[in-house]
């Protein structure tokens, strides 16, 4: 019993008004006379930075050092000033054609028939069930996203003693939020042998928050009905377990892209990132559908996601101008200890990857990694890097290493020595 659906026909529709989607809109709108529509399901545009109320945003894309909410507002202003239209409270519910989508808004159902689609739907942290943490169904268990929404946007209350699962960048972001909400972090757990974050956070962080980081541990049971009372923490090496009293448990990191729309379109995903498989022009394997931001590399910092958005503009314009995709391609595959590499496809004649960096995720801490490229069973390039590859944050490799790749030589494996 559906009545009329409003049809909109922008040149480009961007799904997601976070840093990558808004940056894409800002870059595209001036070139398209404003024919850019950004849809976001939240009531306010800006994405995750809206509720990350601490400084550290905008460093690489805006050359500034600002808070998350200020950064989010600025992204919105810039996209709008460039002539893009942003519609919030617009939940994309599915596809209605190759480059057409349907959405629900308070003003009614809409259908957007665009000439190009940019997916910028980001990533989320895996919640408790997806991590299969057994135990009671206790209240007081949150992901960082839920916590920050609660504290910064709703000014809600959490408990007084928290355990944080994870010791990476986002985990310290959670600790900052907890402190602001008057909740003390008594323990951070990480399965890795050392905290994953920058030393900048770990050392002063420990002093600042009076927080202990328990390495090689994991939470194995949640105790408390109906309110959280404690968690059981296991030492992975010895199997030894102890009970840590807490009334709040924050599950951080362990990212999964919000890839529902991509999968619904039958777009091929990278089994490593679980986001769409893209080339360095950020094309998916569905013609005219592009993907940007942390759904491709879950997750890098917001500014890196934003730079993707600017990067995709050129490819979208080329597609709208009818330029063909360069023939021939080389698949880039991550070898252990790397879990994934982004982008995954290289084509001769395509732009170099965004910010001249390959993005990788390492499952092991390596202080000065020697990155090795192999093609056709032979080492074609190696490069020593002076920054560590660490689990819990994206490892960035300059794309200069790719110059030795033979565009006809087949799959390239990226690993370490």
């Amino acid at each position, binding site marked *: *019993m*559906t*009545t*009329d*659906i409003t049809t909109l026909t922008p040149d480009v529709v961007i799904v997601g008004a976070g840093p990558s989607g808004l940056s894409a809109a800002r870059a595209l709108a001036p070139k398209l006379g404003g024919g850019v529509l950004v849809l976001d*399901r*939240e009531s306010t545009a800006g994405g995750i930075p809206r509720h990350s109320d601490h400084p550290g945003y905008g460093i690489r894309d805006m050359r500034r050092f600002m808070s998350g909410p200020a950064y989010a507002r600025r992204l919105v202003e810039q996209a709008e000033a460039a002539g893009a239209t942003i519609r919030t*409270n617009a*939940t994309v*519910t599915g596809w209605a054609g190759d480059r057409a989508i349907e959405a*629900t*808004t*308070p*003003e*009614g*159902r809409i259908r957007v028939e665009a000439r190009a689609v940019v997916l910028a739907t980001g990533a*989320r*942290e*895996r*919640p*408790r*069930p*997806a991590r*299969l943490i*057994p*135990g*009671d*169904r206790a209240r007081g268990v*949150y*992901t960082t*996203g*839920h916590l920050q*929404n*609660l504290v910064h*946007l*709703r000014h*809600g209350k959490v408990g007084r003693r928290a355990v944080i699962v994870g010791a990476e960048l986002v985990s310290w972001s959670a600790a900052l939020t907890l402190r602001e909400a008057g909740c003390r972090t008594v323990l951070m757990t990480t399965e890795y042998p050392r905290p994953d974050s920058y030393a900048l956070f770990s050392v002063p962080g420990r002093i600042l928050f009076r927080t202990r980081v328990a390495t090689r541990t994991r939470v*194995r*049971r*949640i105790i408390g*009905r109906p309110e959280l009372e404690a968690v059981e923490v296991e030492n992975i090496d010895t199997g030894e377990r102890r009970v840590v009293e807490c009334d709040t448990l924050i599950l951080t990191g362990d990212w*999964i892209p919000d890839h*529902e729309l991509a*999968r619904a379109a039958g777009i091929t995903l990278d089994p490593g990132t679980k986001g769409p498989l893209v080339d360095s022009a950020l094309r998916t394997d569905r013609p005219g559908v592009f993907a940007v931001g942390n759904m491709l590399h879950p997750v890098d910092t917001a500014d890196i996601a934003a730079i993707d958005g600017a990067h995709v503009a050129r490819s979208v314009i080329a597609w709208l101008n009818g330029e063909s995709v360069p023939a021939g391609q080389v698949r880039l595959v991550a070898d252990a200890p790397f879990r994934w590499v982004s982008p995954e496809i290289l084509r001769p004649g395509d732009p170099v990857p965004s910010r001249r960096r390959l993005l990788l995720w390492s499952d092991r801490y390596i202080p000065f990694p020697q990155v090795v490229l192999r093609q056709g069973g032979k080492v074609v390039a190696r490069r020593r890097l002076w920054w560590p590859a660490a689990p819990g944050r994206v490892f960035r490799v300059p794309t200069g290493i790719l110059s030795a790749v033979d565009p006809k030589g087949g799959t390239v494996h990226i690993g370490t020595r």
Partner: protein
Amino acid sequence: MSTTGETAVSTTGETMGTTFDVAVIGAGIVGSAIARKLAGYELNVALLDARGDVGDGTSKANTAILHTGFDATPGTLESRLVREGYRLLSDYAERTGIPVEHTGALLVAWTEEELDALPALKEKAERNGYDRTRIVGRDEVYRQVPHLGEGALGGLTVPDESIICTWTTNLALATEAVLRGVTLLLNRRVRSVEERGGRTVLRTSGGEVNARWVVNAAGLGADVIDRLFGHDRFTVTPRRGELLVYDKLARPLVDKIVLPVPTARGKGVLISPTVYGNVLLGPTAEDLTDRTDTGTSEKGLEFLLGKGEKLMPALLREEVTAAYAGLRAASDHPDYLIEADAGRRYVLVGGIRSTGLTSGIAVGEHVAELIGEAGLALTPRKDLPEPPHMPNLGEAGLRPYQDAARIAGDPAYGRVVCFCERVTAGEIRDTFRSPIPPSGLEGLRRRTRAMNGRCQGFFCGAEVGNLMDTKGGSACEQRHPSPEAQR
């Protein structure tokens, strides 16, 4: 007696002064169905529950299957009531909008022994009055469920096994009971009973409740209540069943219920689509002593992952959206135990295991018969209100976010609050204006699906919590205030 359709839900306070004709203990599916049935007669009925919401015990966490009863023990009361219940609930679901999908089931044999057991199962189904099962070979098994793990030898199809929304079933029955004038008394844990001059006084955690007749449909607590009435007939063992709910993206993997060959311990681990568009793997079967322990366990989850890997490896590559445990009221009695004690004006409805979802309405009819035979006068009412039309939580029907006409009438149905499950502000608001509003976040989740999706609140948790605190008010303009809201 209230017959005007005016609703009475009380979560606190005394009911002194009122002597109900019948008090039904337990507002699960069975208790709600009994109260609804009895309220169809000229009777003043109370429905009590120990918890703060209806359907907050065994009825909320099960495999949500509408059973044909093909594998019941022939000749038992359970066999008859499940068979009747299937028909009654299918019909009731259609009238009230309870989501049902007639997916059918495929029982899969993995060993020669199980394969040999199929003809006997088929014959048993026939003795249970169900003659539509069919034995199929290996190729047909894989044609029907292509993603099934390797090693299946054959199967038995049960084309009428269906999936249903257990939450809406319970809520519809309890809502109709309330609309028929039943007084719903929540937060009333029965602690002791006393016979006082032709009536029974139930002393509860929320005050005394007086009634001429008492029906015990207390599920996991039915044996305890039974002993308060001086009986010692059976013992309830809480049997924990842990389940994993897989992401909606897994739904294309399986479009029917995949059952194992049943054993004495229960029906084994199944894979089933849900009416919400997910895929279920479970349950485990573990006897506990604690009747409130609905936590999940390391062992249970490991067991399910092991089973799942064999049953459908592709399913395990998908994300887990939820893990939960339900407690089934297993009893040492081989059949339903439904008996009236005319002298004490008391009816026991015990031993209703997991089939109670299907049989509930039939149990209600059976109890009415028994209680009538035992001496309670049953005069049918002529002024019964229409059954309620329940909000649709199922993917097979049109949901508010998809309904342009509805959104045009009220923009709150176009404001999606829970993105994963696509629950709108309008639906959340409506629950607070319904005859049985949610008393907490869990109740809101069961009424709307909000926060039940893959992000488990990452995006919407704070907003849904806010709507809970403001009773749905802050987020949407109340363009069409309902009568309840104006009161």
